[in-house]
């Protein structure tokens, strides 16, 4: 009987950057397998390679060597068009600085990834309203990011990440720009989201790491304590 498909699988994945005459080894050959749903926290000191790991998994960057396989797709082998489709359908990003489009309303921000995914307008609209309602922003549909608080913006960003119903959510320091109380609410929301999918979170927050279903420690570009 064959092994079930992993949501994320890295095989000796490495990422090196040139910096002047030196080569920085941001990731030094990581093996990793993540199955099923739930929250996986990636923790480690600054510069340890946790964001690099997240970027490789989200096809935001390509590994120098090794393999990155997400939802059965070997990202190393995908051409640019297929990577775009992968980012549309397979992953949803949540950024530390929210990264909402400033001249679109909350509703339009959530509808945008669905438009890239060629979903009908009526469907986009109803799904975006439903998602914003889920994150508690039904009353903020027509507000632009500048009119929302940090916590509200991050909720819109989470709703946007869920727009195309991807199996994997990647969150890079999602509470880094929020106060503790708001951050706590965002973590609760992400836990809620993780009931039906995998949520991979890069975080410094020990409290959240304790709430995660699985914690990966990373240091100097290597996973500590094995996979």
């Amino acid at each position, binding site marked *: 009987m064959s092994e079930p498909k992993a949501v994320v699988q890295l095989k000796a994945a490495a990422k090196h950057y040139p910096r002047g005459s030196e080569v920085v080894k941001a990731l030094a050959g990581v093996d990793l397998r993540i199955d099923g749903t739930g929250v996986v926290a990636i923790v480690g000191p600054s510069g340890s390679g946790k964001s690099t790991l997240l*970027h490789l998994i*989200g096809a*935001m*960057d390509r590994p120098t060597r090794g393999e990155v396989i997400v939802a059965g797709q070997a990202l190393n082998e995908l051409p*640019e*068009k297929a990577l*775009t*489709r992968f*980012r*549309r*359908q397979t992953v*949803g*990003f949540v*950024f530390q*600085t929210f*990264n909402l*489009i*400033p*001249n*679109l309303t909350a509703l339009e921000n959530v509808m*945008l*990834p669905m*438009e*890239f*995914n060629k979903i009908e307008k009526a469907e986009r609209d109803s799904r975006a309203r439903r998602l914003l309602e889920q994150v508690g922003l039904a009353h903020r549909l027509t507000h632009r990011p500048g009119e929302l608080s940090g916590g509200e913006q991050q909720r819109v960003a989470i709703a*946007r*990440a869920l727009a*195309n119903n991807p199996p994997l959510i990647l969150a890079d320091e999602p509470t880094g720009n929020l106060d503790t109380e708001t951050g706590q609410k965002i973590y609760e929301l992400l836990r809620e989201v993780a009931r039906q999918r995998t949520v991979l979170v890069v975080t410094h927050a020990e409290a959240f790491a304790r709430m995660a279903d699985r914690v990966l420690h990373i240091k100097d570009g290597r996973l500590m304590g094995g996979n």
Partner: protein
Amino acid sequence: MRMVVLGGRNLLRNKLRLLVVTFLIGFPFFLLLSFQAIGAAVRTYTEALKQGVDTSLQLRAKGSMGHVNMVGSHRLLPHEALEKVRGIEHVAKVEPYLLGMSPTEGHNFAMHVGLDPGDAKRLESHGEAGNPRIIAGRDFSPEDAGKDVALIGQAYARWAGISSEDLDNARFVVDLTRSHPVIFPLDRPKRELKIIGIYASGYVFGDMQLFMPMETFRRIYGVEKGLSWLFVTADSVDNVAFVERKIREALGDVADVIAPKGAATFASTTTKTVDRIAATVSLFAVALMVVVIFFVMLVTVRERAREIGTLKAIGASTGEIVAEFLAEAMAFSAIGGLLGMSLFRAVGWVLGGHLFTLSISPFLPAQYKDTLFASLGGVSPGIGPSAFALVLLVAVLVAWVGSGYGVWQVTRLSPLEAMKHE
């Protein structure tokens, strides 16, 4: 489609930027429209001028006036010149003349002209004044060819005792045995011509001429071959120089060619000067717009690097992001174009004169410096379909060319690089 709309909406992100960029693009559009209108006005003026301008070249035997009995100046053009000239491209009409002189007390002498009855009756020394007005009797008809008939100028008629009241019985005797210090006698029999009409030319000497059919002249003067003058009409003022060159090539050194310089000069120098300046300013205006769009889009792409990265991260293709930026550049160009058209409609006719004085007048020949713009009747501030199409075309061109580098930057950035770029 959403990205195109988003590109358009991006304009409103920074209203000050919108205002400044719109003006920076609108003003060159205004310049473009103004200079196009000035160029068009000058071309229209030139075309009108060409219609009324003499495009005839006069040919005479080299160094000779070509009058058959003029002392020292009676050499004629060879007869074959007529066929050679008729065969030249862009020659619309060839009119052969034979001229003789006749002594007249008081007026010194009169001119006798042989020509085909349908040709223009040009006046000696006033070649540009053709077909003088018939004040009594009638003009030549084709049936007069070879007949002993003539038209006489009113002064010459007075000298010969011919009055308009008794025109039915008017006769003129051509006596070639009479001489003058510049006219030698010819041993030819006297010949009587019936005067069928009297003309007035407005020139004193012009009214001292006698026109008769060419064959009649040949019989009276005994000139079987040769021509005094050939008037060669080019089919347009633009071809005068060409026809002149071809005549010189065809006839070699046997003829003097006198070409109308004024119209040719205007057509070849003034309109070309105006066209060149208008084209230069138009190119400059377009280049200015391209530079404005270039820098605006460059700054925009840099300012929005993180946003580009975000859009790529959430699934936008490079093409969709390019569409957003092109739409934004197009919107800037289009609004600039609208502003330019509005400015042109509002103040084009006022500023047109100043633009002309500042930029075109200094490069014109002296005689047109101060008078040409007034002659044009001003610059029309109308926006016709061609002006609208020009604005649209330039707007698209400027948007595409100007935003090219910025768009290239967008395409080469990976999502992560775009975010780090910031």
